[in-house]
């Protein structure tokens, strides 16, 4: 793999985006890649805009933030509206359709997935929406290997929650697979 990936995880404070960024970056390291993870958030512990960015690639990474977004995860309306503008024709956007009602026409492939709803109803805990999102994101893009993602996740989660998190990750993988096979992707230029 020689390609460098620029991934932006966006939403609001409390959705676990920074932790998701950390897990994704650690999975990148397990894959033998170089990684940089940065974040941007307001002073609030809950609510407000929150963003975690991960750059994964084989070589040195100079500028640590996202310039050309390859993969966007948007977990609320505000971040969806704000960051879809930056997408290119080969970008992938994963948008939480249970929280975002208006998806703008954008470049790239857009996958509306009910991430928070899946976490609540399929996994049984809304708290793990970030892990469902990571599963979907990796399932759709292959930014890191599934095995490394799973190992990185297990190394980070609190003892006793392994089963819950594995279920969340599998739910995300499954949602990605279904989204692909159903070809529900809308390609807008």
């Amino acid at each position, binding site marked *: 793999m020689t390609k460098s990936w620029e991934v932006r995880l966006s939403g609001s404070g409390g959705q676990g985006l920074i932790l998701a960024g950390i897990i994704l*970056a650690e999975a990148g390291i397990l894959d033998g890649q170089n*990684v*940089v*993870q*940065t974040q941007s958030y307001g002073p609030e512990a809950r609510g407000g805009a929150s963003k975690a960015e991960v750059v994964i690639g084989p070589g040195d990474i*100079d*500028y*640590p933030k996202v*310039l050309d977004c390859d993969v966007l995860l948007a977990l609320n309306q505000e971040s969806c509206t704000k960051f879809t503008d930056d997408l290119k024709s080969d970008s992938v956007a994963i948008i939480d359709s249970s929280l975002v009602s208006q998806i703008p026409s954008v470049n790239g492939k857009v996958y509306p997935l009910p991430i928070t709803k899946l976490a609540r109803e399929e996994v049984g805990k809304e708290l793990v929406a970030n892990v469902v999102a990571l599963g979907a994101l990796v399932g759709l893009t292959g930014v890191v290997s599934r095995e490394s993602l799973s190992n990185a996740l297990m190394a980070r989660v609190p003892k006793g929650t392994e089963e819950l998190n594995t279920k969340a990750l599998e739910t995300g993988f499954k949602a990605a697979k279904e989204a692909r096979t159903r070809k529900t992707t809308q390609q807008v230029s």
Partner: protein
Amino acid sequence: MTTPRLMQGNEACAEGALAAGLNFYAGYPITPSTEVTEILSRKLFENGGRFIQMEDEIASMAAVIGASLTGAKAMTATSGPGFSLKQENIGYAAMAEVPCVIVNVQRVGPSTGLATAPAQGDVMQARWGTHGDHPIIVLTPSSVSECYQLTIRAFNLAEKYRVPVIMLLDEVVGHMRERVELPSANQVEIINRKQPDAAPHQYVPFRSGYDKVPSMASFGEGYRYHVTGLVHDDDGFATTNPEIVQSHLNRLQDKILLHTPEIVDSEQVDTEDAEVVLIAYGGTARSVTRAMRMAREEGLKVGMFRPISIWPFPEEQLKLLSQRNVKFITVEMNFGQLALEVERVVGGKNAVYRANQVNGELIKPDTILDRIREVY
């Protein structure tokens, strides 16, 4: 080297401090430096060191000085508003020659400014924040692994020269996480303060030899001496004798001046054929590196000079570079602070320009590239 892992800049400061022998930390948490305090509250406890969350930043700095006087390797971490509060006691540490390390992770100021956003507005405060001419050393890392290495170096310099050393980070570097491989414990060079040769009753606490750095006894080991922020003689007692005052203050300056060649540190990237040299430090240097790469792709010969110690400023290294016909652009997330130093050193000989941005975001490579095209 240890196995590669993801680490945050602030965490690397904490780990570097532990590797250097940190055994006392006093602090008052403040964004974006909080992780240093948080991590050490746990790790120092596990290591048998002492951690105290004090009532404020003033007391934290005072506790660090007190601990260092007993022989501890002591540190505190803060950001702009807290750094302002620590200044009086930083001056005390400079005057009483107490080794200590202060981490300042810069955020947007003045005042409480923007708590979670990066800036580099404390460059001059780090040098001149406390009153009176005083010796100080300031280091600025631009990567996570450099946070680790420079924190170790900060302790070594503090111990060797008996001065406060500031680790000047910005929010970008403090909060950024990177893949790092750290040196194992036996690969780390550790310098400890010079202990007195004399017996307690013969100890002259502020008498120094050729290196201008007095030996330092630890309180609690039978050595008794007077510590004061007033100008003092070799015995540690206050004096107004003009000859002694002048010679004491000269020595505080000379401690750093004499050893500047071994203290200063800088990096040059692609400067050999450069027609424009970008000067940057901390998180900004990461943007500058990208901008430089983009400029090279356009055929513009651009290099980077990165001061790693900003105080003392790597003046001789910059002077050497300025002998060629190069233009300089100092890129900073402030309104031009280190630019003043650059202009002092090479202004009048070389064309000097600035690129500045203070909007709470890391300056983008495109913005720097535009400036390069303007001055090229």
